[in-house]
């Protein structure tokens, strides 16, 4: 399905009672099967945007809508969280099954689907482990399997690999791309890492710092499937340069502001 974010604004009241505008008139569209990265300096409200798309946070004005054909019982979104957010009392397998339980999927089909996504994310042999027995990378595989398992119209990912070490992150990025090539679920991928955004996405939506608005949408013209060697290609470097040019001053200002 297509996601349409239309003139979306979000303001908070902070502790001193002041009105803080987190998002200001955001408009963007995510096409079916598209991989869109949302990128911005820290504190630009990109996680807020994702939470509003997920229905976990109300918008102040504007709206988020989904258009297109929805299978019966299909959830609009499923989220992969930065801090994994796995249930510590559930094994890997039971964590993956969580969303299917809430969808009232019969046990036999549930088992089959859980097994399919456990295999797809490389979790075979770890089904019975509790999250605390797994490494960070394995935990996020559980997080990804849990989200893909409900076969959402759009997959939302909130800095999914930023809690991982650099090597694991690189591996997980390639694995995610591989999975995406197979499932073709539309992805909205929030990150603050320019290289990561360009390497993964079809388009990069660049947000300004608070109040967050869309600075530009940068299309990435790299052919798929993406491979490491493309990291040195002129198209890649140009896109990275262009985005860095957009947010450099913003990031500097955010740094001096002294708060996230």
């Amino acid at each position: 399905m297509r996601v349409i974010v239309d003139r979306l604004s979000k303001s908070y009241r902070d502790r001193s009672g002041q009105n803080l505008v987190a998002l200001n008139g955001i408009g963007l569209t995510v096409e079916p099967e598209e991989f869109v990265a949302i990128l911005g300096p820290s504190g630009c409200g990109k996680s807020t945007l994702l939470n509003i798309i997920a229905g976990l946070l109300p918008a102040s004005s504007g709206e988020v809508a989904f258009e297109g054909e929805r299978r019966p019982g299909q959830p609009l979104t499923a989220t992969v969280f930065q801090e994994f957010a796995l249930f510590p009392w559930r094994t890997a397998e039971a964590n993956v099954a969580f969303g299917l339980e809430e969808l009232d999927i019969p046990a036999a089909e549930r088992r089959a689907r859980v097994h399919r996504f456990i295999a797809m994310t490389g979790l075979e042999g770890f089904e019975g482990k509790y999250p605390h027995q797994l490494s960070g990378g394995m935990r996020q595989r559980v997080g990804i399997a849990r989200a893909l398992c409900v076969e959402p119209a759009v997959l939302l990912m909130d800095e999914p690999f930023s809690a991982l070490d650099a090597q694991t992150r690189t591996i997980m990025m390639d694995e995610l791309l591989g999975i995406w090539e197979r499932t073709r679920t539309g992805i909205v991928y929030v990150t603050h890492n320019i290289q990561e955004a360009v390497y993964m996405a079809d388009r990069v939506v660049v947000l300004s710092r608070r109040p967050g608005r869309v600075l530009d949408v940068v299309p990435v013209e790299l052919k798929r499937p993406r491979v490491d060697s493309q990291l040195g290609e002129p198209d890649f470097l140009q896109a990275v340069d262009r985005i860095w040019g957009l947010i450099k001053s913003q990031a500097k200002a955010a740094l001096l502001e002294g708060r996230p």
Partner: protein
Amino acid sequence: MSPPQRIAVPDRTRFLERHEHRLLRVAALVGLVVLWEIVTRAGWVRPLFLPAPSAVLEELVDMARSGPLWTHLWASVRRLLWGFGAGATAGVSVGVAIGFFSRAEAVGQPLIAATFPIPKIALLSLLILWLGIGEASKVTVIALGVFFPMAINTYAGVRQADPLLIRAAVAFGAKRWSVIRKVILPSALPMIFAGLKLGAGTALLLLVAAEMIGAESGIGFLVLQSGNLNETTRLMVGLVVLSALGVLSSWSLNRLERLAIPWQNT
């Protein structure tokens, strides 16, 4: 200039090491009993004040053979189980309710804050007035004693549930009851078990108190009656049984906790 030195780095944390000292643990317990036996055998203390452990053991075996031990024990255990079960169930339910529903919190929290400080023993007279001198008042006072730590601990456990996990559950379609059953309750389990352990101690205390006021059976009754009759050995049997009840309940709660919370300490 002095010649260059070579200094091996010593382990400076040695004094921080902790050992199990298994033998010492057993020796402490055995040592106490042996010392106690010696003190009484030597005649330093009159048996009326402190009977020898061997005499207490003999009396215990005797009471077990002839039956009264089981009568008293069963009466006490029955009261404990009913009171503990009722108090724990009510405590967990109320704790979850006031922890999750803000309206229940608004009603329940001031009520609990106002009634919790009353020592439950003080309520015993009132309960006897209301419910009679029989089993009901005894079971109720134990239930009340267990209810408060359970409700307060469960409430704290529910409030401590990780908001991120609750959001994750909602993100995957969980509604109110799913969130309570699948996120809130498991999050609160460690605190619930802490409450159970606190409650077990309170229950034993209140059991003995209740059995000392108007009872014809039970370990508390045995202790009181033996004291009145200067039957110190029987009294000591009662104390040994109470100690065993306490040790057994905390041991079984620990076992149960490990079974119920398999995702911890593994």
